[in-house]
């Protein structure tokens, strides 16, 4: 991951996320792991088992999602109206759409570009697209989002 890439495009929020991701990288991921660009897929995501602290859950409105840069990957975290959290690849495998901008419910997200539908728990597409990678996500005791990649 190149620091210049992220700072030119990221907002302040994203920069915070990037910082935490970088911190996580120094503790968990091995060297050279940032070479991979774009989204992970269900089968091909780079898994290190490292836990990354993303930021306070309050920065995701209920029923919406926000995207985070985590260890060189882009992950969208959904805060479900039913109370749960889901983390999946942030980039639609069909045409690169930003899934954090998609409309979602407790089960699926719909890509805002071409309306491909993905199951938030399995990553499987109901509309014929390639599947998304899914990641364990939860809350730390202090209310911070934690995702395992």
């Amino acid at each position, binding site marked *: 991951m190149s620091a210049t890439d992220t700072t030119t495009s*990221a907002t302040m929020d994203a920069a915070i996320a990037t910082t935490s991701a970088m911190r996580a990288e120094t503790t968990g991921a091995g060297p050279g792991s940032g070479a991979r660009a774009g989204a992970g897929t269900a089968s091909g995501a780079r898994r290190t088992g490292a836990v990354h602290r993303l930021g306070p859950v309050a920065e995701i*409105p209920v029923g*919406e999602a926000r*995207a985070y840069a985590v260890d060189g990957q882009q992950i969208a975290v959904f805060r479900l109206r039913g109370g749960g959290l889901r983390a999946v690849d*942030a980039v639609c495998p069909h*045409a690169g759409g*930003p899934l954090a*901008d998609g*409309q979602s419910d407790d089960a699926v997200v719909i890509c805002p570009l071409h309306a491909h539908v993905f199951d938030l728990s399995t990553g499987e597409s109901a509309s*014929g697209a390639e599947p998304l990678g899914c990641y364990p996500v939860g809350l730390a005791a202090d209310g911070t989002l934690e995702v395992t990649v």
Partner: protein
Amino acid sequence: MTITENTPITPSRTGTSPAAKAISAVPAQREHRQTPAGGRQRLVVVGNGMAGIRAVEEILARGGADLFEVTVFGDEPYGNYNRILLSNVLAGADTEDEIFLNTPEWYTDNGIRLRAGTRVTGLDRYARVVATEDGTVTPYDKLIIATGSRSFIPPIKGLTGPDGQLPGGVFAFRTIDDCRSMIAFAGGRRTAAVIGGGLLGLEAARGLQTYGLEVHVIDAAPTLMNQQLCAEAGGILRRGVEELGITVHPGARTAQVLLAADETGDGETDGGAAGDGGGLGRAVGLEFADGTRLDVDMIVVAAGIRPNVDVGLRGGLTVERGIVTDDQMRSVDDPDVYVVGECAQHRGQVYGLVAPLWEQATVLAEHITGVNPDAAYHGSKTATKLKVAGVAVAAMGLKDAEHPDDEVVRFVEPRQGVYKSVVIRDGKLVGATLLGDTAKSASLIQAFDHGLPLPEERLKLLFDIGLPAAEVGAAEMADEAQVCNCNGVSKGKIVACVKGGMKTVPGVMNATRAGKGCGSCKTLVKEIVEWAADGDVEDDPSANWYVPGVPMDKPTLMAAVREQELRSVSAVFAALAPDGREDAASKMALTSLLRIVWGGDFVDERDGRFINDRVHANIQKDGTFSVVPMIAGGVTSPDELRRIADVAEKYSVPMVKITGGQRIDLLGVRKEDLPKVWADLDMPSGHAYGKSFRTVKTCVGKDFCRFGVGDSTALGVAIEQRYHGLESPGKLKLAVNGCPRNCAEGLIKDVGVVAIDGGRWEIYIGGAGGAHVRKGDLLATVDSPEEVMTLTGRFLQYYRENGKWLERTYTFVPRVGIEKIRAVVVDDTEGIAADLDARIQESIDAYRDPWLERDEPATPGQFRASLPLVSLPRVPVR
């Protein structure tokens, strides 16, 4: 009576020797209550044609081989062939081999004894045996009579001998032997007459032309295909047939067949075959009732068919036009005797088409095998679609009106050989005829079979209006033809989805994504699904729901929302969705509806909005957005242009573009820059992103234009400033023209206003010029801009409250009907005009420029990047 077990022509699969059979043969009278060896019942099928063998196939498919020992008798010494294709054999398009459906091996392989070439001459239901012409009898436990039909030979002098035999050169057209005789005889002859102008007669005529004959069709009826076509359509067909070089003699009554003495040594016909006359002489011509004569070398009789009911009569069964059956296809007199096909009469109907016969065979098999004892045949609605003598014909039900209030819509274009008509009774399709252009046949057959609701614009039954692929019907399209041009879905892919078991139109659309882009191919997708499912399309109950996640149509949903005071999307799901389950695909439409119902009192949950409405800009392919400031009526100023230019430079906007709605679009703006861009522009939102009122396009108008008769710019600006940004079921694009030259294209807008001389204004609604093209309907002509303003608002509110989600006005207006809308909006026949005016005023009062959210974001991270590692924009910079 001697009773012997008959040896099958082909050995049975069990390999029982004739000797063993002779031993097992016992008098039927004693045997018939017993079950034969092996626990199987004896099933005898009289008739080896398409109906009988289809029934056997259906029985075998239901485990019939374990239940029955099957014997099939057939008149003709062949296996089962496709009689429908005989005309192809005559025309040389198919060989005999190609039309065989069941070869002798098929009978052997399935353990069926085939007694081909053995005519059944008797039925003794008390002894439970059938007798054949060679004097043997065969016992049965269950009997199927499928004797079909024979050619009807009209009572014309000289046409038949005393024993019914045809003279030389005269042929029926029913069997493969008839076909062979005709082909053998036709060589070297010059002229032929076909008696009968129905389907079969025309096909025979066309076939005979193949042999270089000059062909005359002698039709006693005034109209070709009199059974299916009205006089006008028949006339058009006649023109098409005559263009092929066939002479038609309509209304010609044949008085007698002129015969000459048999010639000896006619080498072209072999002894014993039809055509040789057998001593009756040889046909040389026809004499008509008016005394005129027509000299011909051969005559083909295709004057209709009559059911073969002899076996039924001999067995004492009730016979009217056919052998009368119940709903299980059994004779009404004997539960062990089934009747199927053209010889069966069910509820007064005798069917001569193949589709009903398949349905009957299925019911028969379900019942006789006990797989479904409740199986019942309820009759068929028959529709034909075929090419007759090169002309495409589809016909179903009535050919013309029968009752005074039957509604008939007809289109006739004789020069093109096109005739289309539909007959509608009580809103249901009861008949249709298509000639020359059968592209709409699939949807018509569907509507006819299932009594589907019909479009208000009846013309749509006959034409695909405004559809790009209109010329090609579902059936004719190639598999690889692209149907959905947005998502690249071929016909083959849709068909495969249907064959895979998906039987609803929305189901196929979801699975293949066909029709999920701009939607302009939806009608074609629907037709292909109907065609591929062969009429077996399941109605989708959700088709009338406002959204997929709440099982209610829009009026019911709106009533429930008001009654239960549901003010948020989550409240609607909790109260009205199955199990209270929320549905992502329903949220945007519910948000729009709640805003229309509650105006400012709506509880705005941002996850209920589509991304465009969350950030008030239109998302682009790379995740950037387009920004279109409001330029009311297309009128701007140097100061605004300067600000737009500054913003474009400051934020490195990749493209600045003039839109079709007379505005300026800044494309490729990063999400996080949106609030700053709005602040620097300091202009209101142009709403070029939502399902809402967008823009009013105007022409220059009378202040500048030398043709202008009204101040179109002033009115356009006023309309846009009053109504802009209001949510609606679909987007709204308007225009105001200063004169009827329509430079602002008002006739193809959702609402288009046209100034006409005398200070008056015309208001058109329901126009479209995008994926769909439609000229708007004239709502009213008024005297002042103020009236234009009022009626526009009232119509918009009526559409907002009654339009289905994503239903543009070009669909809404024809669906509701311009008369109805005019009555409500202009004449106030329902007394709701004041309410509509008041409610749209509430929405206007509740309107707030969404770009003001730049100062106080509505949610945390509202404008945060959703692709944090992607360097945007990723579009070319121009």
